């Protein structure tokens, strides 16, 4: 009895924060997504599915519906770039994390500090710095000109590649840290045992190190994938706005386009993508537990 009342009253501040910070705002977003767009921005509480319809269809001049893949492209681009970013981050992070885990304790601390160093600088500043590196008359262009490799280069900015670069750069520490944590607690004897049992370095990596580092890789993938889906800065600054992602689309609907119901609908689609990703992960984790318990 006592425990129950503590759960209720002791955690009240948390419940209140959850209620006012998460549940009510989401409720508002959901209700706005079903509302009607006002003539001069804003919205009226008149139920309609127009906002969701708009994701797939354009209303033609005659009032008929025409299929419009424009927004699907944005959703697709968002998913694709997020998946690719996550994969590149995985590929970069594993060797880096492994290398750091092999170092002496003092060096380890230093390297981990360096990995987290970018977090001390504002995200906008960090992404902006890529403008200077990649932009016209930027460092890379100058080097290419100077070495005479090429004279005539298209801008390195304002394409999917630049966005990808910016996103990988922004989120790679979030991948390195959990992988490092799981490699670091790996028992060195297991690696020796693998060598002892005729496992070459490659076999040991494939069959012992990677499987045991998997929890870190999964955690890192979620930490990278989820914020990637919602990224706004990289597409605006490095993608030049013409290669929108869902984050930008939402921003523009609440800003310049003044279509709050449509913005809310897109935000809910984005949120459901995140929820789907988390549910898949959750199911796999509980599945594994269930399998272990069944033994």
């Amino acid at each position, binding site marked *: 009895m006592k425990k129950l009342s503590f759960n209720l009253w002791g955690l009240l501040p948390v419940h209140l924060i959850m209620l006012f910070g998460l549940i009510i705002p989401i409720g508002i977003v959901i209700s706005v997504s079903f509302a009607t767009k006002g003539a001069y921005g804003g919205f009226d509480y008149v139920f309609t599915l127009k906002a969701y319809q708009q994701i797939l269809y354009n209303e033609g001049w005659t009032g008929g519906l025409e299929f419009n893949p424009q927004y699907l492209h944005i959703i697709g681009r968002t998913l694709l770039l997020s998946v690719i970013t996550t994969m590149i981050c995985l590929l970069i992070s594993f060797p880096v994390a492994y290398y750091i885990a092999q170092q002496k304790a003092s060096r380890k601390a230093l390297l981990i500090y360096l990995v987290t160093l970018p977090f001390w600088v504002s995200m906008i500043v960090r992404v902006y710095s890529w403008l200077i590196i990649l932009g016209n008359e930027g460092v890379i262009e100058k080097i290419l000109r100077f070495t005479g490799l090429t004279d005539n280069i298209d801008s390195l900015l304002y394409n999917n590649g630049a966005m990808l670069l910016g996103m990988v750069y922004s989120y790679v520490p979030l991948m390195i840290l959990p992988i490092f944590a799981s490699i670091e607690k790996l028992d060195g004897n297991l690696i020796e045992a693998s*060598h002892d049992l005729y496992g070459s370095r490659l076999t040991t990596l494939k069959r012992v190190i990677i499987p045991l580092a998997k929890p870190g890789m999964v955690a890192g993938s979620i930490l990278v994938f989820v914020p990637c889906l919602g990224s706004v800065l990289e597409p605006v600054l490095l993608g030049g706005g013409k290669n929108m992602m869902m984050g930008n689309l939402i921003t523009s609907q609440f800003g310049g386009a003044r279509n709050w119901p449509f913005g809310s609908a897109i935000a809910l689609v984005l949120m459901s993508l995140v929820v789907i990703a988390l549910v898949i992960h959750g199911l796999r984790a509980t599945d594994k537990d269930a399998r272990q318990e069944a033994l």
Partner: protein
Amino acid sequence: MAQADTGIALQVQEAVKTYGSGTKAIKALKNISLEIKNNEFFTLLGPSGCGKTTLLRMIAGFEEPTAGTITLHGVDIQSMPAHKRRVNTVFQNYALFTHMTIAQNIAYGLENLEWERSKIKDRVSEMLSLVHMESFKDRRPDQLSGGQQQRVALARALAPEPEMLLLDEPLSALDLKLRQAMRTELRNLQKQTGITFVFVTHDQEEALDMSDRICVLGDGVIQQLGTPDEIYENPANRFVAGFIGDTNFMEADVLDVDSTHATVRISTGLEIKAQQKNVRMNSKAFVSLRPEKINLQEQATSGIILDGKILSQNYLGGYTHYSIQVGDISLRASKRNNVSNNTIYEIGSTVKVGFQESSARILGE
């Protein structure tokens, strides 16, 4: 492979291992040479930090000797990486792969050796029955007790039919009862498989119990290499006598030395002539006398007989341990409480203390 011959399995020649360099260098092994025979239960015994694990890791291929050579069945394996050596290890903490089942753990080495699938399956079930773990094959290591993990580690290391099995203090993590049961089991397993076992331990009782031959390591050098009774009865020096079993050391002046015996005088003025090892004239020597070789009261009938006073007494059931003041030295004696004599001597009482000169050993520093 089970070879019944008594040829040389492993030869270590003048192996040196130094960690670090310059003035901070630590010499873990100083010039070790030894031969391990086929089909033998060979034990590396020594206190922690004596270099026994370093030597084992060098044989396994986890560490390279700073100098010297190691040959396995005549093949120089020094520059051979660990995964190519036909030698398997049972690790102190077992090092089982937690993400694999018991059967997968045992199959791991065989898969890397590219055995046929059907042969691997047969070998795994053979190994599981060898260590009585058939019903656990689909479990994971963290679902097993320490003793069960130990058996799996053994099965995993034995499965690829290694030319030699290395065991790094495998019993130290088990409780006393289990440890004693595993001793017998290990010994039987070695006889059954005919594989050469190299066993590392700091427990002298374990070493005496299981080994064909024991190599006593101390301070990075071989102190003595021999059968258990050779090492117990004829220790090569003070270190070995003190490390293996319990003994009384009495400092003595050397009066006379020949090739096998020495005559010394201990502080009570008593002269003892007994077998000697490493004793030189004009240097310090020690008389070593094992507690169980000292007779008390009515059992002290022949040899040297002295008068002593009981200082303390520890009753241990089968045995009683006494500490006895004899002149200015105190001796520890252990007396069996058998049918013919189960008297317990009270503290403070005077007893006759007797021993044969042939039971004493005189050892150099």
